[in-house]
Structure formats: structure tokens, C-alpha cells
């Protein structure tokens, strides 16, 4: 690890001032579970670390007047996993309680995972999948970024030096009847090899909204549009899990060819099976 100066601000505005004063050599450290690994092998070597440990404003969960669930960027997975959310928000707690391992969840934060933007992490997929927005503070003020603008097509985020992710705003419980997250990983504590988020709103047995997102196989999560086209307005029973999942695999990874390398064929199979599982789980709930 290269030497750095450790700064301990106590308010978000102070964090931004410090980031600006030391740009571009300053990095924010929340839990540090990703950053410290990079610093140890010197793939990351910030000269200044701005700690969020003393910025209590960035921790915790609150409901906005609009019904949105606002989760502070420095809220840990362990805290979220213990939350008793209502409606589909429960899936957020479930995702946070079923990734990495127990000690890592104590330190790792939802904002840290979003900023790391590793496609194999669950948070970028979940955030994209339900269309949560990301609240960013900079010297210019607060701005809210949609996931499609936050996560860049080639990987990474659109955050600039001096930007601080302060919160993730999840849509209200009314936005979806059910949200299902499914993933495949090698060992329990590994990051996903393929993941799927299915967000579904059903009224009177008819699909009012459906968002299918596949994560971990592309540099940023892919929102499937063509494979789910025409489903809105149809009865829930019209969803054919196998057909939609097969179409999703093609939409995410391109059409199958006889020259596909083995890893691509493997990813294709994984996308099909996690998507199929998500569709079956999601459509079973409103039917019953």
C-alpha cells in the first residue's frame, strides 16, 4: 500500500470540499472492502483518503414524501439485511443479506458497491433493475442521476472527481407488485456469474409494468427491451418463462453462433436459467 493522508470530515459538504481540494488524488473510503484490496496490490494509490466513517448523515434509511425509499450511500449491507421493509422493498434486504460473506457485509456499503460498479456485484444490477436513482453531491450542488447515465456502457461510472454519491433512491412500494432477484455464483461468497432482476407491476391480473435486467455478463447491467416487448397489457399468464429467458440471453450476448467461445456459451446458459427462475418466481406470486 502506498502512503496516504487520512481525512475525517463530519458532513457531506465537508467531504466534497476535501475531494475538491485534493482532486484528483483523493478517494472516498466508506467500508473500504473494495478500495483497500486495490490499495494493497497498488492498483489504486490515492494520496488522500476521505473517510465517511464520521459522516452519520450518509447512513440510514428514510421514506421520502414521494414514497421513495432513500438509502444513505454509507449504509452497510449488514444494516440493510436486518431491515424489515414492506412490499417489494424486502427484496433489497434479501439481496444485501445474501452477498459476499458475513464479515464483509458488516463493512461493505450500498454506495460503495454502486461506485465500484463491478458488473458482477449485485447492487448495480438491482439499482438498474428497479430504476433506482442515484443522488450525487458536488460543489455545484445536488443532482440525481438515472442508472443508465450513472453506469457507463463500457464499465465504470460517470462520477467525476469531487462528486460524492450521497443516497440511492428506490421507487415507492407501489411502483412494483413484486421484484425478484436471482443469481448464480460458484461459491456462496463469490460475486455473481449471472444475475437477473425482474420488476413487475400487476393490476387485475394484467401486467402494467415489467422490467427485466440481466447483470454480471456485460460491463454494465443490460435492461432487456426486445425480449419483453409486447408483454405490458397482457395477462400475467401470457409470460412464457422459457421463451422470454431464451430471448433475453440473445438480447444480452447477441445471437448464438457455432463459433461461440466456451465462456460465452456458459454465460448464455446461466442467463437463461437465472432469468427463467426469476420469471417463474415472480409470476407465481400474483397468480396465487
Amino acid at each position, binding site marked *: *500500500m502506498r*502512503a496516504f493522508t*487520512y481525512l475525517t470530515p463530519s458532513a457531506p459538504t465537508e467531504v466534497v470540499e476535501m475531494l475538491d481540494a485534493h482532486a484528483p488524488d483523493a478517494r472516498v473510503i466508506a467500508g473500504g472492502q473494495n478500495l483497500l*484490496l486495490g490499495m494493497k496490490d497498488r492498483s489504486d494509490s490515492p494520496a488522500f483518503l476521505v473517510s465517511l466513517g464520521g459522516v452519520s448523515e450518509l447512513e440510514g434509511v428514510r421514506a421520502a414524501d414521494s414514497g421513495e425509499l432513500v438509502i444513505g450511500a454509507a449504509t452497510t449491507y*449488514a444494516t440493510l439485511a436486518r431491515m424489515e421493509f414492506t412490499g417489494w422493498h424486502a427484496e433489497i434486504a434479501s439481496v444485501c443479506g445474501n452477498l459476499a460473506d*458475513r*464479515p*464483509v457485509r*458488516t463493512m461493505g456499503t450500498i454506495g460503495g458497491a454502486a461506485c465500484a460498479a463491478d458488473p458482477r456485484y449485485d447492487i448495480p444490477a438491482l439499482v438498474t433493475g428497479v430504476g433506482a436513482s442515484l443522488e450525487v453531491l458536488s460543489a455545484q450542488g445536488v443532482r440525481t442521476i438515472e442508472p443508465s447515465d450513472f453506469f457507463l456502457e463500457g464499465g465504470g461510472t460517470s462520477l467525476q472527481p469531487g462528486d460524492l454519491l450521497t443516497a440511492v433512491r428506490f421507487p415507492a412500494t407501489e411502483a412494483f407488485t413484486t421484484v425478484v432477484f436471482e443469481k448464480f455464483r460458484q461459491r*456462496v461468497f463469490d460475486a455473481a456469474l449471472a444475475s437477473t432482476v425482474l420488476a413487475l407491476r400487476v393490476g387485475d391480473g394484467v401486467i402494467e409494468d415489467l422490467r427485466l435486467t440481466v447483470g454480471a455478463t456485460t460491463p454494465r447491467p443490460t435492461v432487456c427491451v426486445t425480449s419483453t416487448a409486447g408483454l405490458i397489457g397482457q395477462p400475467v399468464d401470457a409470460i412464457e418463462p422459457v421463451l422470454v429467458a431464451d430471448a433475453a440471453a440473445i438480447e444480452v450476448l447477441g445471437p448464438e453462433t457455432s463459433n461461440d467461445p466456451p465462456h460465452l456459451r456458459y454465460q448464455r446458459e446461466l442467463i437463461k436459467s437465472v432469468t427463467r427462475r426469476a420469471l417463474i418466481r415472480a409470476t407465481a406470486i400474483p397468480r396465487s
Partner: protein
Amino acid sequence: MQDVTITINGDIVTGTIDERTLLLDFIRDVAGKTGTHNGCLEARCGCCSVEVEGDIVKSCNVLALQVAGRSVTTIEGLSKERLRPVEHVTSQSLAGMYAPLEAMGADVNDLHPVQVAFHQCHALQCGFCTPGMVMVMKNYLEENPEPTRDDVRTAIAGNLCRCTGYQHIVDAGMMAAETMRSQPDNSRPAPARPAHDH
């Protein structure tokens, strides 16, 4: 260099440390508590797991500065009565003993239920991973006193053991859970139970 104070097992420890010092290094080198092991240094093996105010962390992936002013419990902090220092037995002779605890002059009542269970179920061979295993198991069982074997396996997913094949560790987790259920005050463990038959 920076002055940092961390309470370790109730003792206030202050050290002048480089900013890069990991919590693991603070515990081992500044506080001198070498029970917490340095395994992989990349948050994979879990040997270095300790509790920070009741929350389990991998101390190799946390800066000492991140927990400045807070209190940490290491494996040494689990036994209320400190074991007598081992002077008269070498590690080699200890390995061959039928009842090493007795040889050390320690009583099973000195130990935390998880430690007792690890001892009785033979949940360790080389013992390198054991400090982390015990800390994670204790932390988990306090949250979920009635786990299934699968729950225990998932809870220790972040801890690697190359000797045991995990069977006896899971046995120990189940036995410790039972003891802790019957004895909610963990500071006074239940008397020794007959060992599992394997």
C-alpha cells in the same frame, strides 16, 4: 504517523502508527494479541475475523484508523478466565495429548461455549483458521440461536479451513448453538457435554 486508541478486549491500547496500518496489524503488533491470525491479507480466508462493537469484520481489510476510538473483541477476549500460559508443554506434545485443556491447567468452564464445542467436536486440526472460525460462529449464533446445518455452513462461508473438511466445524456450531440456547448468559458456559460420536 498518527496516534490511535482502540479498546481491545477491554484494555485501552494506544499506538503511534502509520496510516496504512491494518486493524490486524494493530491487534497483533501494537496490542500484542497474536491469537488473531494473518492468513491471506485479502479478505478471503477469514482467519483474522474480530468483532468491532458486536459486528464481525475481517481485520485484514479494515484500517486501524477506521475503528479508532471503538472497542474490539478478539479471540483472547472470549474466555473470561484467561488460560494459564503454556510453559510446560510444547505444541508438539500438546497435539498428542488426549485432553490438552486439562494439560494446560484450564477448565472447560473458562471457555466460551463455541470454544468448548470446537474442543469437544474436534473441529480443528492445524488450528490456523480457528480464531476466525470461532469469532464468526459466535457472532452468528448470537444473532440466530436456532440454525440448521446449512445456515451454519453459509455463516462461515467466508472462512476457509484446509484441514477438517468443515464437517466437525459444523458439528461444533450446532453443539455451541444448543449450549448457548440453554445458557443465555454466555459468560457462564454449561458444563462439559459428552462428545459427539463420529
